[in-house]
């Protein structure tokens, strides 16, 4: 299986889906001539031409609305947000149009649109460009929200998102674009939306984490292995719909859980998953569910403060020790 970058995996998914279905097109800022601010659309303009790779003005609300309109009449647009922070400008289009039209038209309109781009904290992008934007979207009925942590997931999930008849919010990460991994070449390879995966088997505690936090949780797990704490890591991959069965099965096995999220924790994914666990696996818990979240503050620009705001490996380790009633916890 070829080893390629997360960026190349996304590019491959776009290319394959555009080859497979000529209703698929890409629209956004700098996606054509510049080949994408993060080079995800590299080579696509050359292969598919300006009719299917559409450069737009700096107007998120406008080109997102154009995408939704195209979806209403049968095309399958992939809208690129240069970063997902800019999707705030298109929030009305996404929340009030994309998410609602199928419902409000009594099922007459499907909105098969993918809105994708990088989000979450990266490196010194400061307060306005370091936000975990998924929280704005997974609250909205009618939207699917995907956060792919690995190159293979990036490809498999983006292809499923494009083939899905509902609006899908697909949030990548600046910090993961250069990550390499094995990715199946098979153009029919997809990963279904709403399917979590156990990334690492363990017996003592379940850690739920995705994107950058998943990689930190893996480091924490390796370190704790030396202390004899066996950590199981579950990556939800799709935040909505959430594969709670996989998470519950893991918690029922380990009897303890830690949920990690990069964003500020209030009413976050950690709250949601914790609530699920205590509602559905209460009698299996040997300790309260713990959350490791970003601090409740805007992301600082300074490197040291940025580190302090973001969940670190050490914070994850401390939380795991704590729920395991282990020394130092």
């Amino acid at each position, binding site marked *: 299986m070829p080893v390629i970058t997360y960026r190349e995996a996304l590019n491959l998914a776009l290319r394959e889906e555009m080859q497979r279905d000529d209703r698929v097109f890409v629209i956004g800022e700098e996606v054509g001539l510049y080949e994408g601010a993060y080079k995800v659309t590299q080579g696509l303009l050359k292969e598919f031409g300006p009719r299917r790779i559409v450069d737009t003005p700096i107007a998120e609300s406008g080109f997102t609305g154009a995408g939704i309109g195209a979806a209403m009449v049968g095309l399958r647009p992939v809208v690129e947000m240069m970063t997902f922070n800019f999707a705030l400008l298109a929030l009305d289009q996404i929340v009030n149009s994309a998410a609602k039209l199928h419902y409000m038209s009594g099922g007459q309109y499907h909105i098969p649109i993918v809105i994708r781009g990088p989000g979450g904290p990266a490196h010194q992008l400061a307060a306005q460009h370091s936000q975990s934007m998924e929280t704005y979207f997974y609250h909205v009925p009618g939207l699917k929200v995907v956060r792919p942590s690995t190159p293979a997931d990036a490809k498999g999930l983006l292809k499923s998102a494009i083939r899905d008849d509902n609006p899908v919010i697909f949030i990548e990460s600046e910090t993961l674009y250069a990550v390499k991994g094995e990715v199946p070449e098979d153009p029919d390879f997809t990963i279904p939306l709403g399917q979590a995966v156990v990334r690492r088997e363990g017996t003592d505690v379940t850690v739920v984490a995705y994107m950058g936090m998943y990689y930190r949780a893996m480091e924490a797990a390796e370190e704790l292995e030396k202390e004899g704490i066996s950590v199981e890591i579950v990556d939800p991959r799709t935040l909505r719909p959430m594969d709670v069965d996989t998470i519950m099965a893991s918690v029922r096995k380990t*009897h303890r859980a830690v949920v990690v999220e990069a964003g500020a924790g209030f009413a976050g994914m950690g709250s949601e998953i914790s609530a699920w666990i205590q509602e559905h696996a*209460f*009698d*299996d*818990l*040997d*300790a309260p569910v713990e959350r490791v979240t970003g601090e409740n503050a805007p992301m600082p620009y300074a490197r040291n403060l940025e580190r302090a705001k973001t969940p670190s490996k050490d914070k994850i380790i401390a939380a795991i020790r704590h729920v395991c*009633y282990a020394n130092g916890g």
Partner: protein
Amino acid sequence: MAVSKVVMPKLSEQMETGKLIKWIKKEGDRVQAGDIVAEVETDKADVEMEAFGAGVLRKILVQPGDRVPVGALIAVIAEPNDDIASVVAEAGGAAQAPAPAATTEPAPSRPAAAPPSKPAAAPAAAPKLPQRGDELVTREAPKPAATGTPATAPSGAAHPAAAAAPAGPAGGRVKASPLAKKIASQSGVDLRLIRGSGPGGRIIRKDVEAAATAGPSGTVAPAYAPSATGPEYEDVALSSMRATIAKRMPLSKGPVPHFYVTSDVAMDRAWELRESLNGLAGQPKISVNDLVIRACALTLLRHPGVNASFQGESIRVHHRVHMGIAVALEEGLITPVLRDVHAKSLAQIATEARDLAERARHRKLRANELSGATFSISNLGMFDVSEFSAIINPPEGAILAVGSVKVQPVVTDTGLGVGRRMKLTISCDHRVMDGAMGARFLQDVGRLLEEPLRLLV
């Protein structure tokens, strides 16, 4: 050193008071855990009371002939230099109080069926009551008892984990993780007896598992050790049909609506087997009743619905078989309990059943040998009866009546022959089970007795 309280044990579900017959030990005697300190008369039998704490029998508070409520302090065991004045003074009040409420501690995990009118206000010094007479003594930590909350906690006698003073509740709730609670209820571990190792003394899974596997300590071994790690019972929600049956049946016939199923069992091969076994040197003599006990024990495991009792809001399905064996006495009848009989060989059953019957006739049974049966057998075979029906011993769900083995003409494949036949009649509580359940159970008991080698494996 800890001061141990000796309290009037609760020896049966119905028992509210007990009469002290005599003290075996007197004040000043040194006692070890397990020593017999007194004899107590209950509504059923005279039983011997063991000490669970070691020390000197410092103070006797109840004189022979006195009748006191269950749970009342009747004596104090302590080291000679321990100060017992506060215990005696404080508990003295409790002993004098009639305190009927203190005798109705609900059984573990029973749905909250106690009427709210019944005050749960046990006197501050009254310890949580032992349930099956297996915790006759509670131990008080040597903290000053003058504070508002009692420092009493039930003895950790059965669990070494509690050898240190349990971190348990000062009259409050036990802090335990949900998982720990679940495991405790399945394994029969009393959370009050465990010290929690989690934050703030929370009892967590490993504490319960340690207590469950540690089992009885050497000095104060209970009379039996659980043989299975599985749950002792489970409470199954009543179906609406069952709830209706449960409501109507008692209205049609008495508090326990009995029904009866009788079956004829060919005992030829069982008879031969028994004669062969009893021809072996060095083996205990096996009676027909022992064979029936063994057959029932094995069958009950496969018919848990018969090994069940009616609990008002639910049916308690027992996962272990404790067999009540009716023993006729001159003045009546007593039913000592052979515990975990499903896990016992025929030889063990024969030995233990004989011992129980022997001691029953001499009224030397221990308290915990008189309660807790999940099913009973009554055998009148020695009186040459062909069949009879027995009365269920609540809260058990059924009882088997065993008739004599009779030599009689039988129809065989080829014509008429002579065979040994025995009639079994099961009385069932219709609130718990239906006719077909009783019949299927009886059929399987009969099959085992007709292929008796199965009783040996």
